[in-house]
């Protein structure tokens, strides 16, 4: 019952807000895996796209497009398939909020 309620709320209000409410470090922890290519907190050290400070919706849309095969890629189509929709939202929100340095 409780679970269905939560699922419903997630569906209604967007699971990102829920996830954030339960774990303030969710985005940070997920995004840490991207740093080996995109740089710490998305600030790139050279040769790959900078993610820090990009618009949240742009990042989320790119990840969905990679996942759905709409944007050609060498590797991101394979990586983005590893994340749920709410994790994509959390990743996008985290990088969008980072200073571009």
């Amino acid at each position, binding site marked *: 019952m409780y679970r269905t309620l939560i699922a419903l709320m997630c569906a209604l209000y967007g699971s990102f807000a829920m996830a954030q409410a339960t774990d303030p470090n969710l985005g940070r922890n997920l995004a840490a895996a991207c740093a*080996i290519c995109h740089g710490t907190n998305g600030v790139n050290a050279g040769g790959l796209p900078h993610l820090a400070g990009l618009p949240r919706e742009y990042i989320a849309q790119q990840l969905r497009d990679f996942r759905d095969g709409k944007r050609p890629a060498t590797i991101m189509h394979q990586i983005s398939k590893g994340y749920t929709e709410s994790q994509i939202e959390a990743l996008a929100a985290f990088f969008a909020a980072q200073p571009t340095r």
Partner: protein
Amino acid sequence: MSHPMNRREILKLIAAGAASTTLASCASTPEARKPLARVIVIGGGYGGATAARYLRLWGGNHIEVYLIERNTNFISCPLSNLVLGGSRQIDDLTMNYAKLRELGVIVLNDEVVSIDASKKRISLKKIADLDYDRLIVSPGIELMHEQITGYSAEAQKRVLHAWKAGPETVALREQLTSMRDGGVYVLSIPKAPYRCPPGPYERASQVAHYFKQAKPRSKVLVLDANEDIVSKKGLFLSAWNDLYKGILQYVPNQEVRELDAMTGTVKTEFDTHKGDVLNVLPPMRAGNLARDAKLITHNNRWCDVDWLSMESTAAKGIHVLGDATLAAPAMPKSASMANNHAKIAAAAILAQVLGEAPNPQPVIANTCYSYVSDSEAVHVTSVHRYDAEKKTLLTVPGSGGVSSARSALEKAYADAWARNIWSDTLG
């Protein structure tokens, strides 16, 4: 370090203001500036250096972080095969710990000789014992030379593994450059699991590339103890077929059991092979420090961990990272993984110290690029998510994969991966 009297109060104080993602930017009362815990990290390779850096990035001054490394410099194994191929120099792969020091990590150039888990204390070679609240060990691997008859200390002066980047890498390159044209380079690969599954096939490609340029009558003979190419099979086979036909020969099911350094011979169960340069990779296990601290739980080789925190299943308060761990299913022993393990551990330790809820579902991603020549590369990637039922990290169905084909673009991305993982690990 810890102050049991008022620690709880400090924790409450921090917890109250801990909605922000970086603790460095929250509560800054005088009490809160005192470190809440001392974390000692042993091993300044990919796992350890990343853990030290992220404990400071995420924990700020709340965590006192020591990093203990016996070598003065960090020398990257990734890209070290390019030194053998001739397109990189060892200096390009040699870095230092200056930026970690700037971040407040106390970096000590020393060797840890023992760990006393009950006293939470470590002993070192040069300086006095140190106490810790939490310990992280990322000691890398040990090579099990004793598993191969004749691979004595004396033989190891001639027959190199070069599976820890540094002087051996340079020495092996010298053996290759001074070999006669028409000579044979023998690379033997142990049974999986070993450090860096695609690494030996990348190395074979790099040496073949060098021979093709400089000594076209020479041969690369790959003796694989495994029944097939362990990683990126199709991509390596097509590179070898297109680029190194007649130079590189691959033979599976050839477990080297014996070698003679003087005559340059290796013996497998049924066959004997001769080479001008022998490069024998013995089986591998977790580093001696892990063994001595009784962290090895599996097969006398690897350390089991709780994948939510990287804490050893054998010793409370000690976290194990990187190649030393008993890998989760389909997880390679790679720099990418060691770096990711470190972040799971840093987050878990901070959550514990600050009284926050731990991350219930870590998700990490592996990528290993391999250079098949000086101008093209291929990759393998996978995403691993914690499964609460199975209590381990499992690959996310449908995710991951390998390159569609080798390319110059992926060579550029491989270079970029290296730049970024170096700066993410060392600052």
